[in-house]
């Protein structure tokens, strides 16, 4: 492997979350001692090439961990068949499962983002403030902007960590609504309640 590919391997192996191409590019040229004074675009192209090299090296290889594309970035993860014995030996804990209320709220935020609390409340039929707060705290959603209108409500959207816990590359991997058995109405044109 090239020095840059090895550096990327080290960084990805050390990180406990996915690293994006952008982030990996900041490691790049100067750190690996290649080139000088290049522009960002060049560094990114080099990083992209090194990443491809690293992926190639890992694709064929026979390992207990694998390089996975996730949440807009890359991350080393253990192969599926090993999680169970590792957990049984109590070397690591799997993440806590989300409650149905949390998943409901996440689903609404994911599909309607940016979305305010009132809309979430209305769709779920229950007050969702506490659940939203908890999801913000866990870093799965965040306040992305403020709406118009009375009180300029906070609007929520999903974070990269949301994709991370679902193992998705991006939001476009979520099922399309028309693939579901029941169709969701289009966003309502401000109905009077």
């Amino acid at each position, binding site marked *: 492997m090239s020095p840059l590919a090895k550096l990327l391997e080290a960084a990805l192996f050390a990180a406990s979350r996915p690293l994006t191409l952008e982030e990996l590019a900041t490691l790049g040229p100067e750190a690996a001692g290649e080139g000088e004074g290049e522009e960002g675009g060049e560094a990114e192209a080099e990083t992209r090439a090194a990443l491809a090299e690293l992926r190639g090296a890992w694709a064929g290889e026979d390992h207990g961990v694998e390089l996975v594309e996730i949440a807009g970035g890359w991350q080393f993860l253990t192969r599926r068949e090993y999680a169970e014995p590792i957990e049984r030996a109590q070397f690591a804990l799997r993440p806590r499962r989300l409650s149905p209320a949390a*998943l409901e709220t996440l689903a609404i935020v994911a599909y309607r983002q940016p979305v305010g609390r009132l809309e979430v409340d209305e769709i779920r039929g229950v007050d969702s403030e506490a659940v939203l707060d908890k999801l913000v705290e866990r870093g799965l959603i965040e306040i992305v902007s403020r709406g118009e209108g009375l009180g300029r409500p906070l609007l929520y959207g999903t974070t990269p960590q949301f994709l991370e816990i679902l193992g998705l590359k991006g939001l476009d991997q979520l099922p399309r609504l028309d693939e579901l058995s029941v169709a969701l109405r289009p966003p309502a044109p401000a109905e009077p309640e």
Partner: protein
Amino acid sequence: MTAPSPTNPVLPEQSGFVVELEQFSGPLDLLLHLIREDELDITDLPIAKIADQFLAVINELGLNQAADYLEMAARLLRIKAQLLLPRRLGDDEWEDPRSELVRRLLEYQQIRELVGWLQQAATRRAEQLGRGYAPPSPELPPAPLEIELNDLLAAAERVIALIPEPMLHRVVPRPLDVEGATARIQALLVAQEEFGWSDVVGARPSVVDVLSAFISLLELAKRGALRLAQPAPFAPVVIRRESPREAA
């Protein structure tokens, strides 16, 4: 009707919590459950029947204290009443009072379907573990700043207490002149390896002088240009030039 019985005590004052503890995540979830159980047509809801069942279940589960469920119960009863009203034959204006509820139920049903999908995705992701242990790097340089900001601000207050009374109550009229203080300290750093607080602010400092000096000292200490030390509590602060890789 076989409603699942609650396994947890109900906490009436935290309705959001109640819902989580129970099998239902809200009144819509409960309604869907009833509809599914009786295999009812969601688009042609027998409201009278559903309303009765809904009331019975929330009574049984003690959910009749949760506002969200009560609101839904009231809504169902209202729709039931509206349906009982006679309407004129061929009234094109008539709108089915159930339509809003049906729309919400369909929408909610879709959300539940998404929940199922998300749950599966999360479960599948949990079959793979990420990096667990990140050993502390031995390469990390020691933090240059040894004084807490709060400590320093407290010290600043003590210093301010020494300033003549009338000055205390004057509003600081402009942003502090931190730049000036920084320049002064930097000049002192060039000239002397070690100096004291009064060298920076002079004998009769104003509030502005004191705060400016402290902020720039903080900033310079943070950048590693100098080191602040206090030999004893309440003793004068000693400012020392920080030379890189100094063998103390």
